[in-house]
């Protein structure tokens, strides 16, 4: 694929992701907004892929490797911390055990 065609393709994906994002997030109840934030926090930890690529492909360039590794450290903290803390929170959300209430799906 030529560079121009690739760029257009990437922009297409980006725009679709914007609409998908709004669609998905508007379904999340306010009840879960804090886990939503920490969960999306964990998701942007995907930047770890970029960090690994620059750290690993930095052929004999010390500066690139060092900066890349620093990025790996930060991104790993982001990924692990984000998923763990979200799991901890979501574990706490429980419905009432006695007299279960009807589904609140329609909100």
């Amino acid at each position, binding site marked *: 694929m030529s560079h121009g065609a*690739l760029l257009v393709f*990437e922009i297409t994906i*980006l725009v679709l992701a*914007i609409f*998908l*994002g709004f669609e*998905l*997030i*508007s379904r*999340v109840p*306010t*009840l*879960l*907004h*804090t886990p*939503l*934030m*920490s969960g*999306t*926090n*964990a*998701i*942007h*930890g*995907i*930047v*770890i*892929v*970029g960090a690994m*690529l*620059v750290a*690993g492909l*930095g*052929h004999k*360039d010390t*500066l*690139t490797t060092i*900066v*890349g*590794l620093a*990025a*790996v*450290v*930060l*991104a790993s*903290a*982001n990924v*692990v*911390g984000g*998923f763990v*803390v*979200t*799991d*901890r929170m*979501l574990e*706490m*959300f429980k*419905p*009432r055990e006695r007299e279960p209430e009807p589904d609140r*799906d329609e909100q």
Partner: protein
Amino acid sequence: MNRDLTNILYLVTIVTFILALRYLSHPATARRGNQIGAAGMLVAIAVTFGQKGIDSYWEILVGMVVGGAFGAVAARRVKMTAMPQMVALFNGVGGGAAALVSLAEFHLRAPASGHLHRDISATIVLSALIGSVSFAGSMVAFAKLQELIGGRPIVYPGQQVVNALILLGCVSAGVAIVAGYEQQWLLAALLAGALVFGVLFVLPIGGADMPVVISLLNAFTGLAAAATGFELENNVLIVSGMLVGASGTLLTLMMGRAMNRSIANVLFGAFGRVTTGAAAAAAGTDGGTVRSASAEDVAVMLAYAKKVFIVPGYGMAVAQAQHDVRALADLLESRGVEVSYAIHPVAGRMPGHMNVLLAEANVPYTQLKEMDEANPEFSRTDVALVIGANDVVNPDARNNAGSPIYGMPILNVDNASAVVVLKRSMNPGFAGIDNPLFLNPKTVMLFGDAKDSVAHLTAGVKAL
């Protein structure tokens, strides 16, 4: 690993992230969604390790263990009241990582000018700029929430002009780089400028506006990650970053709407100025009478009510009273009182903060009512028990066009037959805004630390 296979596996990761967000639409499935997302992240990391040309495995692994261990320990230890600063911290490190990736990428690919496609250099500049602002801004937000520095807005004359000049400088540097002046020092200068801007931009924003700021910084880090995806021509980064960008943007708008303030007003309006005006206005409106009650009196009101609404605010979180509140609610329920909780969207220091605190205290989520659900029910409520909330129940927001919070949607607790306000003292709240609810003849005040007061109420109900 073959490039096509790599991209297919990255698509698997994208799908898991989409499912993770989809499952968040209901508390019963949310946890599973998060686990699916985590599995998808593992796939992406494994696939990246398998890519052609990757070396320095050991260094990367060590880096992951160091960062991951820090993240895991912090995430395990953090108290639920401290969740806003934890989210700010993880958000900041993500932004920092994106900025570092673009710095390394620029160094690698532009040893001399004229090597880069314009769009690549543009996205490098963008992720460096947004990532650094997000990093520095999140660290200041963290410091404010952790009370390492004062939560009150820090303002000085000419602040906006200084900020605008720094931002202008960064943008000019970025434009120069994209125009072809691909110098390492220039990107470094841009990074440094963006860090300073990030600090100065969050400093003037007060603690009560933190829900907006944290959401916005969340969006920034997502956008920075998406820009990194363009640099590296990597779809999983573009899509995941943009999903987060959309989420943060939507939350920012929702928080702004819940405070009836434009985002520009929150970011550049420095709440301090509003505060001074409000304090002046408050001084003139003293004169109503405040009725104070004993814990025993309030216990009787609660015990013989049919329906009680608990309205928690940040004061409950500060006093760590959520477990005591739950104990009181349980006791009332065992006496046949119907108890629910009314949660304002901006109660606390981040979106949804109160829900997490109450869930931690084992309050079933079916008892937690959103504002739109709670408001029509107040007229059928015998007692509204306001614990450490102030602005979100202030009737001036509805009635007094001169109030700084006029127009902000509030919980209409004054529609209940009686209102009990648990408050430390008659000092005005964080925003320094006068609250006529306290002077309402339906209202009684119970002064003291929220945790102690709730414990006294529980003892009082038990003694009946």
